[in-house]
């Protein structure tokens, strides 16, 4: 079928699916138990559908969605690697999935131990003194890390430090998190080699700088050769160095942020540790910190008893406090733990090495047809510009859409902002050479089409269940929910009838 109705457009009054336990306790009228004003007047107008309708509806929806299991997902900055099924099975064990967060510690020894060991592993990978797994995602790690830095400065009487430096290529969460922590942002330029412009950094550094936030490799996929110098400069100015670990897939077992001079590191376990992405979440964004920042970490933290048991320890006096309820995205942590234990030190290094190899392999093959703004060996990803194609009337967005026709997801486009018509490609280590070769072939074909039949590209995609969507209509006259009486938004154009699916 060409479209799937909304679940609210299905069903009939009185239909339902779930059964609850039979009522087996004596009941009293609600009105005897609760104040009349507090009671709901009308039922929540949820759909009235049977189980088979639900099953078919969500099966159909799933069939209208593309995941890593269906094909190549070269989405730069997102590390869409293979998501091991073992992860899911482990997270599904009743001993993990059916645990209440407020049970006594002695009823959750295995869970606390797992978190404890995970923190140890992440500390080792990052070269940090201590990790907390509390943050729910990368951006949550960022704000947590910045609050830790803030508390650190305050503890030293340097509460005045109100500026965070951020390279112009940075991910949007970095400035957004800094604002949330009540910092002002100064943007640092990228130099000709794709790294931090050290001269510009020097200009911006002063006694009000709280931190520099950066990724390394950065969003261009480039490892900043000056990282040691940068760290020295920032530390000399009394600032702290924050590592956005979204790109950690490039450095495991090769280089540790701690050794580079970073004071805080966050991980995106849903990227680097394949936990998986779930259509946009959940993730987990643990942060690791250098020794001087440990006292400021949020609580609670897992701790080991003298007798080998484990317990949750409340945060100390200097802690920033709590950043969310309970202990982080626990079942995501189980998946990450599984991933790391499966790989071990040797395997993790191979992961990063292979991610780098695959990226360079693609970059090497594509750079003659697409502009490579920074022509250097890349790390786990690289950024092309479609400016040559643009000159022919084919944009990066068009190329992205055309790729969908070949059973592949599109790279990230228009990010980082510093590259015009950016196409950010991250193949990850879990792709076969054949898949990479196929992608090269398709990218070559699209470039060819941009010369010979640009409309094929600019009108793409052709083979997907829906065509290009009207983003302007969506934003100008927002419809963010179904309401009774809503007719589907459709244009007057005729749709082929009688030919479904």
């Amino acid at each position, binding site marked *: 079928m060409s479209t799937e109705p909304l679940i609210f457009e299905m069903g009939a009054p009185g239909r339902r699916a779930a059964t609850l336990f039979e009522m087996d306790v004596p009941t009293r009228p609600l009105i005897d138990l609760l104040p009349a004003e507090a009671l709901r007047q009308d039922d929540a107008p949820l759909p009235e559908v049977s189980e088979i309708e639900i099953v078919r509806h969500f099966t159909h929806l799933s069939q209208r969605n593309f995941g890593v299991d269906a094909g190549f997902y070269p989405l730069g900055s997102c590390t869409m690697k293979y998501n091991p099924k073992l992860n899911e099975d482990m997270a599904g064990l009743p001993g993990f999935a059916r645990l209440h967060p407020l049970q006594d510690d002695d*009823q959750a020894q295995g869970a606390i131990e797992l978190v404890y060991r995970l923190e140890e592993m992440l500390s080792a990978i990052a070269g940090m003194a201590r990790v907390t797994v509390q943050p729910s995602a990368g951006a949550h790690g960022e704000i947590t890390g910045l609050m830790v830095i803030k508390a650190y400065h305050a503890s030293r009487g340097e509460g005045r430090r109100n500026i965070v430096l951020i390279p112009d290529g940075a991910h949007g969460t970095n400035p957004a998190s800094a604002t949330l922590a009540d910092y002002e942002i100064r943007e640092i330029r990228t130099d000709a080699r794709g790294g931090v412009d050290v001269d510009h950094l020097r200009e911006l550094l002063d006694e009000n700088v709280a931190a520099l936030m950066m990724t390394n490799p950065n969003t261009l996929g480039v490892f900043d050769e000056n990282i040691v110098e940068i760290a020295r400069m920032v530390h000399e100015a009394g600032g702290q160095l924050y590592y956005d670990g979204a790109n950690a897939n490039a450095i495991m077992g090769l280089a540790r942020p701690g050794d580079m001079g970073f004071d805080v590191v966050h991980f995106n376990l849903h990227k680097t540790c394949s936990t998986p992405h779930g259509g946009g979440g959940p993730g987990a964004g643990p942060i690791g910190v250098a020794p001087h920042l440990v006292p400021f970490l949020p609580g609670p933290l897992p701790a080991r008893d003298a007798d080998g048991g484990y317990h949750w320890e409340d945060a100390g006096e200097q802690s920033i406090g709590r950043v969310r309820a309970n202990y982080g995205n626990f079942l995501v942590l189980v998946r990450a733990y599984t991933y790391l234990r499966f790989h071990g030190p040797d395997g993790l290094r191979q992961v990063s090495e292979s991610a780098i190899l695959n990226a360079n392999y693609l970059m090497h093959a594509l750079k003659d047809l697409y502009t490579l703004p920074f022509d250097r060996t890349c790390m786990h990803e690289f950024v092309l510009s479609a400016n040559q194609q643009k000159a022919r009337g084919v944009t990066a967005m068009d190329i992205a859409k055309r790729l969908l026709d070949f059973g592949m997801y599109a790279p990230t486009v228009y990010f980082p902002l510093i590259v015009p018509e950016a196409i950010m490609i991250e193949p990850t280590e879990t792709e076969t050479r054949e898949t990479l070769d196929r992608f090269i072939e398709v990218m070559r074909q699209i470039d060819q089409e941009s010369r010979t039949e640009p409309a094929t590209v600019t009108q793409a995609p052709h083979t997907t269940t*829906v065509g290009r969507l009207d983003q302007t209509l969506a934003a100008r006259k927002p419809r963010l929910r179904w309401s009774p009486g809503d007719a589907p938004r459709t*244009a007057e154009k005729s749709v082929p009838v009688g030919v479904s699916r």
Partner: protein
Amino acid sequence: MTYIPNTPAEQHAMLRTLGAETIDDLLGAIPADVRLQGELNLPPALSEPALRRHEMALAGKNLNLDEALCFLGAGSYDRVVPSVVAHLAKRSEFLTSYTPYQPEVSQGMLQATYEFQTMVCQITGMAIANASLYDGSTATVEAALMAVGPGGRGEVLVSRAVDPQYRQTLATYAHARGFTLREIALDGGATSARDLQAHLGPETKAVIVQQPNFFGIVEDMPALEALTHSTTALFVAAITEPASLGVLAPPGAYNADIVAAEGASLGNPIGYGGPALGLFATKADLMKRMPGRLVGETVDDRGQRGFVLTLQAREQQIRREKATSNICTNQALLAVFATVYLASLGRQGFKEMGVQCVQRAHYAFDQVTALPGVRPIFDKPFFDEFAVTLSQPVSAVNRALAQRGIIGGYALDRAYPEQGANAALFCVTEARTRDDIDQLVRAMKEVL
């Protein structure tokens, strides 16, 4: 071990096309002095079967809710979840996809999220809802931030009957972001209207009240709302037990401006409290100030209905430091679980769940408080949780109950020291049968 498909021989061939011999030839940009010498200090790799055994052993050290009857609530709830939910929500097309940036191949996730947003509106009675936030606590933080406004200062009032973990989280953010957080005192387990009135002022940006509150008590929301709205402050309803919405008036009915809720118990595994599911709903006119992703309905170039991420100009990927929030990765998959779950309960089932919670909890209350050595702490109406004082410390009682396969109530002194070590908060949801409750009562009789 790894999930790398290419063999060393293939990798070598690939390297050669790059003019390289070894991977090291690609790593020149890493300065020698930061290049890791030797291996990471990690435990060695485990094969899949060995790892499975290891984690089954770890999991086996925990007392899980299939093995023991749980009477703990306090923000996390053991629900009856139909089998369909996980079967559908875990389909790999959902599980292994990213945020639906390419809508043409992501209609499944987008439409499911649109349905989720709608259902959140349906149960809360609000006009619009976002695609999810991290959890109930951070959703409450986002509500406060939204009320305070970008760069703004001012005061946020939070009832002391709001989940203690939420209040702690609010405090952390208030401190960093630079607004003032004040707590409203309790009056017999409910939010003191008098104390609220005393604190309200021109600086007040928001008032946050939990319904039912942390003690399970049903607050007089209309009264608190009226007080709040006598100022310019926004009235925020925090909800940790969404089952209550089957029975209690939805926040839309008492004119709440924002609803921040914990939706994990809507079909998701309880999972030691994470991942959780932050719900966030508000009034239509606050749309542009809203945090988080939004899915909207539109049309495609063939004239068909379709869905897209929309109003992204509020978000960090566009607005960067001026974004309404820094959230990026959210809890999308949990939202799918919740959507399937709510569809599965449907109009009737959702109400029935609420009614069952009330009835079962009141039956339990009657039985438990009839025991010698137990007395109720408050005498306010409650939903599915109630506070009692025991003749012994909760920790001791819980240890004894655990030996009988029962997970006892929450020790209230963890967050309310004034209640003393013997005060416990019991929770009885629709997932506890009469038999379960009777078992608890028998066990308590033995123990107390």
